[in-house]
């Protein structure tokens, strides 16, 4: 009876009901999460004293100045940004046929197979996948073996010899890292893209066909523009995930640093929390800019 009375009371007073629901999660997110984020932001305005290696607790822009003026630091940001953009483009290209097939052509069991087939690798342990790629890309690993069998060993060697992206083996080159990133985030691109394509009304395709368009024309002029919000939504994931990752550049990768690694190293062995904090503000800013762009393409309608 009391429960019933209480529930009726709350139904009649939506403000009370809302407050009761919102207080616990807001307390958690407000103190634990936002509290931590602001502490982080605050730390980025401190600096490390060059001689004593102690944190100087006076607000200053010195650390940010270090971030934007030292060529090595600028390189790290640019390198990470380039990788994020390249990975996003590659994911979109590979995802397009998969998403199109699963959303527009596959039916019944085949459709279920595709959805489960995309979801499973997405949720399979992140570290296990990185570890798998390390084994695949090793010098005597399966990629080199397959290239040898297919008579493509020369192509692989040429790619590895390329300046900038190459290296001694795939597992120690930017090319290998790019492959791994693309693999890891691909499902995050496929699912929103497929969701956007699912929503394209069949009548539009019918109209396009009735008006004499060939399938390829319909795809290019009707389906693709309507898939853009999905691509934008997926790209938010691929972009953001690449910017913040530090495990993949650590495990598979060339000597150059990435933002995530820099944060990790600076807070750890280097003990420079202010610089680590300033570096972690970079992806936040980049993502905010990216979200603003993605919003213009309707990314949030497709999430």
């Amino acid at each position, binding site marked *: 009876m009391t429960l019933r009375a209480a529930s009726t009371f709350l139904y009649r007073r939506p403000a009370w009901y809302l407050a009761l629901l919102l207080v*616990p999660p*807001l307390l958690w997110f407000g103190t634990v999460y936002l509290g931590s984020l602001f502490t982080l932001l605050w730390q980025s305005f401190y600096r490390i004293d060059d001689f004593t290696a102690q944190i100087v607790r006076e607000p200053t822009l010195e650390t940010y100045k270090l971030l934007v003026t030292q060529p090595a630091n600028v390189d790290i940001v640019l390198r990470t940004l380039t990788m994020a953009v390249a990975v996003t483009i590659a994911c979109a290209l590979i995802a397009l046929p*998969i998403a*199109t097939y699963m959303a527009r052509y596959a039916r019944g069991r085949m459709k279920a197979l595709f959805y489960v087939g995309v979801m499973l690798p997405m949720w399979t342990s992140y570290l*296990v996948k990185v570890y798998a790629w390390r084994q695949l890309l090793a010098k005597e690993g399966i990629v080199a073996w397959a290239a040898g069998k297919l008579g493509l060993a020369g192509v692989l060697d040429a790619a590895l010899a390329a300046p900038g992206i190459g290296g001694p083996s795939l597992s120690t080159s930017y090319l290998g890292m790019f492959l791994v990133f693309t693999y890891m985030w691909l499902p995050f691109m496929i699912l929103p893209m497929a969701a956007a394509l699912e929503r394209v009304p069949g009548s539009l395709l019918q109209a396009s066909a009735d008006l004499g368009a060939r399938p390829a024309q319909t795809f290019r002029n009707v389906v693709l523009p309507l898939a853009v919000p999905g691509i934008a939504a997926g790209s938010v994931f691929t972009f953001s995930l690449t910017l913040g990752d530090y495990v993949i550049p650590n495990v598979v990768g060339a000597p150059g640093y990435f933002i995530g690694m820099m944060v990790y190293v600076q807070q750890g062995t280097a003990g420079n929390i202010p610089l680590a904090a300033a570096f972690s503000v970079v992806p*936040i800013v980049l993502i905010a800019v990216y979200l603003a762009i993605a919003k213009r393409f309707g990314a949030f309608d497709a999430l």
Partner: protein
Amino acid sequence: MRSSYRPDRPSLLLRVGAFAGLAFMHIPVLIIILYAFTTEERTYQFPPPGLTLKWFERAFERSDIWQSMTLSLGVAACSTVIALVLGTLAAFAMARAKFPAKDSLTLLFVLPIALPGIVTGIALLTAMKAGGIEPSFFTIVIGHATFCTVIVYNNVIARLRRLPSNWVEASMDLGADASQTFRYVLLPQVATAFLAGGMLAFALSFDEIIVTIFTAGNERTLPIWFFNELFRPRDRPVTNVVAVIVIAVTLVPILLAYYLTRPDDEHETAR
């Protein structure tokens, strides 16, 4: 008719692209499973020269693996319970109500997933250092519960939004009070999304590394054990065995979650 209209069959190129893409997503995982059985222990030689089960035996004898596994299961269980409570409360609050600052709250509730994990990780670490909190089991749980809440929230709110609002009104019009409406109308609809959210949260927590490294201190969850093993590999095939175990532990909740939230696709296309 509406959604089943097909202007043409898929072109060969599209089909090849789709199936090749799907294969690309699965081959690495299959390879890792194969490597758990290889007799070659020093290199990643392919194809493996022989197959054996001895690495499973070796892995089961290792107490460090068991300790890390127990820790990870405990962390995942605690984080999931907290996430289920907080995520469901937030979803019920945000689903229908209109109030000022709602957009900011929506952003707040997805922020831990939208921002890279490293930001969450280093933020929690700096806050812990500033507050003099030592890393422990509880700090790991606090980090995990935060992003797990987002997963539960997303699952439950998606279901609540799909629920026609006039169901609640109809129930009330037919004389049910608020608690009856909740029990007989809302709860059965939301239960599967709630369970699915919990499953995904559990799987996510069990596997998390990016945030955990910052909040764990000297505690070694299974992903941290795995991460360390990547850099100084002893018994490489044992690592592969652990990989297979991790895949199996996360696979079950994920498949269950999928079947619980599967869209009624068959009915839609049959029309």
